[in-house]
């Protein structure tokens, strides 16, 4: 099987369509491991993976950990609190320390955009970005694409509406870049205060009206409002937000019959999505979770063995 000719997975922006398809095809093949009585393959036996999480995370970290275990890697979990900018160990020192343990892959999540890029420059091991600030969350976009491909059979030509807090969402960025590369028609929707400048240049159409986003959409991707990243008021109240941007059953009536609803989680029932919608048959939120493990297995598999390659230049 082919492999990715790069050391790190820092973002979707640096991947070609061929590389994205390679990861998705690989994930498709690896997905069957979950259906076996013994859910393990020896692919990464003898390889060491460090999970370095500077931000609290349950779902992404568990998903990576499960992916690593199913591939038989040796795992080291490192949770670092950075709640206060302390005079403690710097990111680079932490990285150098971990490097001395000779890992093959470091999976990193950090609240600062670009932190994995900094590690990628100094580390021999492959760096996988598991979410950096408001920048990218590439494995989430890959699992989203995998899920859509399974249901719809393709990404090309689909209308995909991403609705919610676009500004603070790394998922919105990675998803938009991936879907645009794959030939989908990406719509981004939210209050104008939560749409960053020039987001259209990432390949999305922008609207402030949810009806316009939902109309004839094949996929609706709901994002939660990230109160923890906001240090000012972007909209008047949660109530008003729900009234204008909440995905309700009534609004779903405007959608096509075969529209699917997605959400990267964690969902806030009654804020951006109604329970009725989240639990409806057209919701594939739980398929996303299952696919997360497969997508991450694929990335781990395709990057393992690439430690020591020169870091790839960032795309402009």
């Amino acid at each position: 099987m082919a492999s990715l000719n790069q050391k790190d997975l820092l973002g979707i922006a640096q991947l070609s369509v061929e590389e994205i398809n390679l990861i998705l095809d690989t994930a498709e093949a690896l997905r069957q491991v979950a259906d076996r009585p013994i859910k393990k393959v020896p692919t990464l036996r003898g390889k060491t993976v460090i999970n370095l999480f500077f931000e609290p995370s349950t779902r992404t970290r568990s998903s990576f950990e499960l992916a690593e275990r199913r591939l038989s890697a040796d795992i080291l979990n490192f949770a670092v609190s950075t709640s206060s900018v302390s005079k403690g160990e710097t990111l680079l020192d932490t990285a150098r320390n971990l490097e001395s343990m000779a890992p093959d892959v470091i999976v990193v999540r950090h609240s600062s955009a670009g932190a994995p890029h900094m590690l990628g420059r100094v580390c021999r091991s492959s760096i996988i970005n598991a979410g950096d600030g408001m920048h990218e969350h590439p494995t989430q976009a890959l699992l989203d694409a995998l899920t859509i491909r399974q249901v719809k059979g393709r990404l090309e030509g689909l209308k995909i509406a991403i609705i919610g807090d676009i500004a603070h969402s790394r998922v919105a960025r990675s998803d938009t870049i991936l879907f645009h590369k794959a030939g989908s028609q990406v719509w981004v929707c939210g209050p104008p205060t939560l749409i960053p400048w020039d987001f259209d240049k990432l390949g999305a159409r922008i609207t402030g009206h949810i009806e316009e986003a939902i109309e004839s959409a094949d996929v609706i991707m709901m994002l939660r409002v990230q109160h923890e990243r906001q240090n000012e008021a972007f909209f008047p109240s949660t109530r008003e937000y729900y009234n204008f941007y909440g995905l309700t059953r009534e609004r779903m009536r405007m959608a096509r019959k075969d529209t699917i609803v997605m959400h990267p989680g964690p969902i806030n029932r009654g804020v951006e999505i109604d329970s009725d919608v989240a639990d409806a048959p057209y919701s594939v939120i739980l398929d996303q979770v299952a696919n997360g493990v497969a997508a991450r297995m694929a990335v781990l598999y395709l990057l393992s063995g690439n430690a020591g390659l020169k870091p790839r230049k960032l795309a402009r």
Partner: protein
Amino acid sequence: MQIILRQGRIVDPSQKLNRVVDLGIDEGRVAEIAPRIRKKGRKEIDARGLVVCPGFIDMHVHLREPGREDSETIESGTAAAARGGFTGVACMPNTTPVNDSEAVTSFILERAREVSRISVYPIGAITKGSQGETLAEIGEMYRTGIVAVSDDGHSVQNNQVMRRAMEYSRLFDLPIIDHCEDRDLAAGGCMHEGYYSTLLGLRGINPAAEEMHVVRDCILARQTGARVHIAHISTRRSLESVERAKKEGISITCEATPHHLLLTDAQVTSYDTNFKMHPPLRSQDDVDALVAGLCSGAIDAIATDHAPHNINDKMLEFDRAPFGIVGLETAVSLVLDRFVRTGLIGLERMVELFSTSPARILKLERGTLAVGSWADITVLNCEQAIEVKSSEFLSRSRNTPFDGWRLVGGPAMTIVRGRVVWTV
């Protein structure tokens, strides 16, 4: 005669001079300029092929002493300045403690007398502790030797305080140097707000944060008659406002830094913190406007905003690292290579930007080589190929985005009051 510089090309816009001549120095002052000086100098300098200019003045540097001597000291910062071709620097008051009193001003001046081979012109704070609330003792500092006031790094947010500062500064005819930024609009950002901040997921600094304060300063300068100087101007619209105000006769000037003239926000894609500065690197459109202003005369001076940061502080995640880069040891070569060599500006204009204008704005008896004036001289070699090597900097800090750049042209000798303080 103390020193004779033989057959250099003297470029001195103050005398409309651009000719190959001899220049004699005696008792620290320019004694004679003539095609051939017959007398012998105690020191004879062969300046053939070199350009002899009135001493360059960097009107915006941070020397970090007192308080952050791990990043820079008056000694190391002025040594870096001399190496960079500067005969004088104006140092910003954001030290620890802030230069908001006569005591700190005299400390800086005394320390400079002890360790600096170039002139140090302190800038006092506008407000106590640069907190933006109550006026600092501007008069006392003026008597001690400040050349301007500024709350650089923290723009004065309160418009009434700024108005009072402008009114009060007129008493001493001190320029107010404003780092223009509305704090609320800047919203804790760490790079220019635009396509790249969106792509990179970094909080943006809205350019309107600068532009609104520039407009505010124009309005208040008109009303009060104060002399206002806009520090490190960085956007097209800021510059347009300054130009408009100048046309209306308002007493306003501005400076630009080499990095805002040469780099754009696209460079931040590497997340290299040496591209993090305040104001941030702007869009290509802004850079184009600044370069046009450099040529047209809309920009009065080039200043470096030399901001040394110890490597441990600077090598952090992008949003956590401090703002600023060093500039003293790269500015002259960058301008020679990128603007003079390319024909965008002439040497006369370069001397205006680095010497004549800063001296005029700060009212220093400098910026000219007229007979009788202080012999502060920057000698340039326009043909010399150099490679920027941060490891060779005399500054204590290495935070430059220009490391490894190959440039043609640079300082060859720095003379302060008739004393050669640095030579290649």
